[in-house]
């Protein structure tokens, strides 16, 4: 009887205490009993990537078995990542290694969450010169602005949102392929697209188009190519009322309203422009570097295709946006040396890079971070046909490195504390695209809201 009571009391206590220990700090488990270091890693990875990256971390752990005890890898989805990380920050329980994007970098540094990697890289005696500098620079911060100064993260990947065309449709219509080094002007693009836009089964409804445009991802190219931008250079002022911006937006919506070479807003609502591209209904669509493996897979996209450049407006230069996410190290990590080593390994290990870029696997979900590898083995594998990639692979690198006819850049929202102003703009854009409001009226309507939101965003971190 006494025992039972004691047991019950114990159970009650355990349950009660369990509630606290579950939320308790775990930084104390930074080492195993025999003095080896433990690391915690928190990443988002898709199903393709997860086994590759987990394998890489496994290899790192085995190679450092004398110093590293256990590496705890937590993987989540892109959508869940920010929420979970915010929770970890609030609880003061950050993992040793996690992701940061260029947009959040300065805030993470200013609030003391992440550690400067520069001294650790120096201590390891390694160089970052072999990495793509455009991307690496987006992880520099000098205490004032992003882009220069010390390195706070190393890139996990660098992506380019290139343009693509359906070769089979070009063959069918007898139209010469676009030149991967000479982008169409707007007028040329419209003319080419008109040749594709038709009713192929004679049921009275258009079922094949020149192109399809997903607003939030494919308007930037027009804006930038016309020399305009969503914000001022200091990212504090919304500049969508400039003549250049208005002209670019007008030309963008004219593709749907006047030239009618894209599905209408209603048609887009029934079946998205991305699905229509996959179904072979559009001659042109976008292709991110992460899309390549899927587009090369006949199950997903049963057409021949290749990469090309977005059409140009007044600057004559074709633009698109770049993306990246990088590994950073918690400022409170008890094992910073080991964490820095893991970061350097994940970002630059040639074997790992060969695997994710598809040099060894044949399926590419990203381009290599290392310039030599990208320019050498990667392109060789494409040329040899062992890596499933379209032949105009240079389009990717041209956008990444910049040429006199094309360039890549980061979207303005990467440099603002949040992207609400961007959401406000795109939320109602279909009203312009379906002709229910003019470009001028729309801009007059949303610009004050966007500016107010941007002010609040900056104010929220001051």
């Amino acid at each position, binding site marked *: 009887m006494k025992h039972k009571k004691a047991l019950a009391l114990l159970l*009650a206590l355990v*349950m009660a205490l369990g509630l606290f220990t579950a939320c308790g700090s775990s930084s104390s488990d930074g080492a195993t009993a025999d003095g080896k270091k433990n690391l915690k890693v928190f990443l988002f990875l898709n199903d393709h990537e997860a086994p590759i990256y987990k394998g890489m971390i496994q290899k790192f752990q085995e190679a450092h078995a004398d110093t590293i005890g256990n590496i705890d890898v937590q993987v989540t989805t892109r959508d869940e990542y920010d929420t979970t990380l915010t929770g970890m920050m609030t609880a003061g329980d950050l993992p040793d290694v996690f992701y940061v994007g260029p947009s959040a970098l300065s805030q993470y540094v200013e609030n003391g969450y992440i550690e400067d990697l520069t001294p650790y890289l120096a201590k390891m005696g390694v160089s970052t010169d072999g990495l793509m500098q455009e991307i690496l620079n987006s992880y520099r911060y000098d205490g004032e602005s992003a882009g220069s100064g010390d390195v706070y993260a190393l890139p996990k990947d660098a992506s380019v949102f290139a343009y693509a065309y359906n070769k089979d449709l070009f063959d069918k219509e007898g139209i010469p392929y676009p030149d991967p080094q000479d982008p169409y002007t707007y007028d040329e693009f419209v003319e080419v697209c008109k040749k594709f836009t038709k009713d192929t089964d004679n049921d009275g409804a258009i079922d094949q188009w020149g192109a399809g445009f997903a607003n939030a991802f494919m308007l930037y190219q027009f804006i930038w190519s016309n020399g305009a931008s969503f914000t001022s250079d200091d990212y504090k002022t919304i500049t969508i009322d400039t003549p250049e911006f208005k002209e670019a937006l007008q030309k963008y919506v004219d593709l749907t309203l006047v030239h009618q070479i894209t599905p209408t807003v209603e048609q887009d609502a029934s079946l998205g422009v991305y699905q229509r591209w996959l179904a072979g209904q559009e001659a042109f669509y976008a292709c991110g570097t992460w899309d390549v493996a899927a587009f090369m897979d006949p199950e997903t996209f049963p057409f021949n295709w290749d990469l090309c450049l977005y059409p140009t407006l007044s600057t004559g230069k074709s633009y698109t946006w770049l993306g990246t996410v990088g590994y950073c190290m918690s400022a409170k990590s008890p094992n910073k040396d080991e964490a820095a080593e893991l970061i350097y390994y994940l970002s630059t290990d040639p074997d790992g890079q060969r695997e994710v870029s598809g040099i060894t696997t044949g399926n590419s979900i990203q381009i290599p971070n290392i310039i030599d590898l990208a320019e050498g083995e990667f392109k060789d594998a494409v040329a040899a046909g062992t890596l499933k990639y379209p032949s105009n692979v240079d389009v990717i690198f041209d956008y990444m490195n910049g040429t006199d006819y094309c360039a890549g850049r980061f979207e303005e929202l990467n440099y603002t504390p949040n992207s609400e102003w961007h959401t406000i703009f795109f939320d109602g854009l279909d009203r312009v695209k379906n002709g229910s409001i003019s470009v001028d009226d729309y801009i007059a309507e949303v610009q004050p809201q966007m500016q107010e939101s941007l002010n609040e965003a900056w104010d929220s971190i001051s």
Partner: protein
Amino acid sequence: MSNNGKRRRMSAAALEEHRWGLAFVLPPFVGFLAFMAFPIVFAFIASLTKWNGINNMLDNFIGLANYGKLLTDAKFWKVLGNTVIYMIGIPIGMILGLIIAVGMNRKIRGIKVLRTLYYIPVISSLVAVAILWMWVFNYDYGLLNSIIKALTGLHGPNWLGDEFWVKVSMIIFMVWKGLGTSIILYLSGLQGIPRDYYEAAKIDGATGWNLFRFITIPLVSPVTFYMLITGLIGGFQVFVEVLVMVPSGGLNNSAMTVVFYLYQKAFESRQMGYASAMAFLLAIIIFIITAINFKGQDRWVKTID
């Protein structure tokens, strides 16, 4: 002396029992503190700050400024309006539920199968059926517009893409999803009404409509009241349906609800403080409306006793 000794032993036993009682109450109490009281207090404090999830919450105290800003936030009022419009579905669901429940409240063959069928939407995953209904509402290829085209030869509305029709779509979906629950609740209410009431009324010459109007409706009013309360509380918290079916929040935010906006502010715009204030304001609105409902129930809610 012996009496005293006995009393002392008794009280010691009572005391021990008391302690054990406390020990057993402790886990749920701690659970309440950790998972209810703490988050509420935390959210309230957060609502007084410019916390963005990254900065230090307490360093960014701004008093009631978030609440003040909310009252002048046009988008907040718009999404609150949308949320209230969706509640048109509550009476529609009740009326349909009661009619179907009355029809089912009799012994016919296959009644159990029929009842089960109506309840399937309730037990189905909300996300799964929402995706299903996205296809029902599809502009070109959807079931609804195909039927409309077959019947009238006209192209039906852009259900999820139009500022007006998206609300109609959401109401249709929510009524469909909730119908099974109303039917079950009304069925149990109907079965609690004694047969003699109807028999007595019939002897007095009451017709079918009168029986329904003066016996059935008043005597299921406790069920109606329960559904009104839970419907309103749930109605203010609608989120998943919209997130799945209209992930953008609809053209011009025409489908967005308060909780959807709250989510956007918290996790997309990283304005945790502002979102917390919105959560509190929403809770206050729900509290006031529920209180009014309880106050008003004496006027129309009848019980059999």
